């Protein structure tokens, strides 16, 4: 009996080895086929195919009004421009690119997909994203770019991997003017005034600042606001390995958040609030301030009318108010609609991707009153800008520096560490020293 069982065990081990080896082998084969696809380049077969009905799978954001409306607008326009092309939408998951990476790993990438810097960096190493340098020239996409938004087109290596639509977006600190007036609190221009305002609001039972810190990028944004008061390049400099968290600007940024949190800056359970919950606090007049990207302008204006405005970030001290007034947090980065190198008709897919990006931007500009775009739109806007957007559009040319959103950071290891550490700051029980140590450990390991 033992002999039989031993034989069986050996047989099973053999099965395992075969599985392991074949799994690895398949991967390598996929990789090499990917490489071959990429070097094929333009094959010039698309004119004929454009007339035939074609179905393309597209992986795109389609979650809220800000993403549904531009997508639907672009699809409608595509039906008129290329009636033979049908798009099959695969809705993008909010999962740090996990679904898309799984598609890539299993050789099932959609023909067109929305990509950010992380996806571009990961996919270019594994030949899962088409280099669009030639196509961008050929389709005329480059000519339609805003000169100030070229950073959203080119990746660090100088190549184009996606057709962008979003421009250099910014983090804004919104506030409810009525709540400030009713509680006789001055709109802060310096950190000390902000601290006083937080204490005043807290003593009157008003939540000073609402933040949807369950998503970690707003935590990074809040931290960056304070870091940029002393170091205009903020988190971007840390990401590039040009600075350490132990430097004064970064350590003080952490200390200030801790001090504000201890003074009662945030609502209870802030790290567990999603956008809807946090925005409701602000839109319903229960929180005096709210942090979000400038795309929040439309929703806040709709909810609060002319009671809402955005403030310049509170400066380090009174002397530096004017000097750092236009040092903003946020910015754009390479991203947009990318194309799979494994798609059947590359030229057609590229053409559709470029078209979708242009139309996406067109909708944002004409229908959603958003002028912060990567590409130029020559059509008139359908509704005037809200007052806050007017104010921002006047200030945009005066901006002295920008940094990055968390999703625009180039190193995923640093990004994850920064997101975790800045979220911990919001508990008030995480020390600035631990914050500095944790970040510097990661920065050191990355740069080793």
């Amino acid at each position, binding site marked *: *009996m033992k002999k*039989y*069982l031993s*034989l*069986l065990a050996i047989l*099973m081990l053999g*099965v*395992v080895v075969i*599985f*392991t080896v074949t*799994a690895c082998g398949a991967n*390598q084969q996929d*990789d090499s086929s990917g490489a071959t696809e990429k070097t094929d380049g333009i094959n010039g077969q698309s004119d004929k195919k454009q007339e035939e009905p074609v179905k393309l799978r597209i992986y795109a954001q389609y979650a809220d009004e800000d993403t549904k409306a531009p997508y639907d607008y672009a699809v409608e326009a595509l039906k008129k421009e290329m009636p033979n092309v049908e798009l099959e939408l695969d809705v993008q998951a909010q*999962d*740090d*690119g*996990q679904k898309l*990476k799984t598609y*890539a*790993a299993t050789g099932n990438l959609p023909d067109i997909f929305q990509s950010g810097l*992380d996806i571009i960096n*990961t*996919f270019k*190493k*594994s030949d*899962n994203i088409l280099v669009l340098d030639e196509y961008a020239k050929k389709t005329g996409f480059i000519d339609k770019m805003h000169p100030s938004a070229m950073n959203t087109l080119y990746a660090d290596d100088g190549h184009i991997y996606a057709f962008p639509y979003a421009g250099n977006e910014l983090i804004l600190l919104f506030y409810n003017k009525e709540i400030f007036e009713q509680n006789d609190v001055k709109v802060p221009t310096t950190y000390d005034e902000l601290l006083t305002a937080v204490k005043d609001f807290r003593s009157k039972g008003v939540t000073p600042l609402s933040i949807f810190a*369950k998503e*970690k990028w707003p935590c990074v944004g809040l931290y960056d606001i304070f870091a940029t008061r002393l170091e205009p390049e903020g988190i971007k400099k840390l990401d590039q390995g040009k600075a350490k968290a132990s430097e004064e600007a970064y350590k003080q940024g952490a200390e200030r958040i801790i001090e504000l949190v201890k003074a009662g800056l945030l*609502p*209870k*359970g*802030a*790290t*567990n609030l999603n956008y809807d919950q946090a925005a409701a606090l602000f839109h319903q007049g229960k929180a005096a301030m709210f942090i979000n990207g400038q795309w929040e302008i439309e929703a806040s204006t709709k909810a609060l009318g002319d009671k809402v405005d955005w403030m310049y970030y509170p400066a380090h001290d009174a002397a530096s108010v004017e000097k750092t007034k236009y040092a903003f947090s946020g910015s754009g980065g390479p991203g947009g609609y990318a194309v799979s190198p494994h798609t059947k008709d590359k030229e057609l897919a590229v053409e559709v991707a470029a078209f979708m990006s242009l139309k996406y931007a067109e909708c944002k500009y004409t229908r959603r009153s958003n002028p912060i775009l990567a590409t130029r739109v020559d059509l008139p806007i359908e509704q005037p800008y809200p007052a806050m957007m007017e104010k921002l559009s006047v200030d945009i040319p005066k901006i002295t520096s920008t940094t990055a959103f968390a999703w625009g950071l180039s190193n*995923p*290891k640093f*990004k*994850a560490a920064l997101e*975790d*550490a800045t*979220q*911990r700051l*919001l*508990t008030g*029980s*995480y020390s600035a020293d631990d914050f500095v140590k*944790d970040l510097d450990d990661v920065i050191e390991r990355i740069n080793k």
Partner: protein
Amino acid sequence: MEKYLRDRTAIAVFILPTLLLFTIVVFNPILQTFYRSMFEWDGLSEAQFIFFDNFTRLFQDRLFYDSMYNGLLFAAVLVVLQIGIGTFLVLAVTDSAIKYRKFLRISYFIPVVLSITVACQLWLSVYNGEYGLLNKFFETLGISYRQDWLNSEKGAIFAIAVVNAWQYMGYHFAILLAAVKSIPEQYFEAARIDGAGKVRAHLSITLPLLVEAYRFCFVLAITGGLNAFANMFIMTGGGPGTATYTLTYMMYRSAFRVNEFGYGCASATMLVVQCLIATIIINKLFGRESVTY
């Protein structure tokens, strides 16, 4: 039957499908995970063999120890609440003096059939720092104990563990109930004749005869605690910061947020080793001869 039992070829043929399935579904992924933990790999590009470097790094990573500590805390809460309270409830519903026993039995099991997402959403409302039921409860009682349950670095892991314990206590309750029901009634009659009260009878008869069931419950609770993931994924996203990370969460972070699949596999390997050690220890502790009367 005996003829077949003596036929070794027949035995081998009959167990082959199960063994094959087990090998493919369980053993092969474990081996692959271990194999891939020796690579620097982002999940897509060509992997680079780095031998045990991922493990060396893992043992120097504070997050690894924090995650392991959280897993142990989670497991401890499950053991105390699921098995401890489960036992108490079983003894209660098997007592003929208790009314509505059938209703209680069903009630205790209802959370088990709920989706984990539903259970977590329910408890997110309960734990809400501003308007949550729990804080309101303390407020109603006039007790000044308002807590920011899920925003606390030290407390959030306990809060999440309680949710898991609440949801799956019914499962342990069912296992223990079945074991209690299988104890012959005459043992208790004999104890009563000897003058033993309810507590004495349970201590001397019920609990010792539940050893086998406890062994199973301990393995489930402890390994379940060590590799907990879904509750924290839904309720806190591992936060605040990394305060509610377990090894499974660390594996998820490494693989999908940081693109370090090899490092994630190293975490997974350590998790498998931990669960294996825990199971061996539990079997050793409960491995003495079965109690018989």
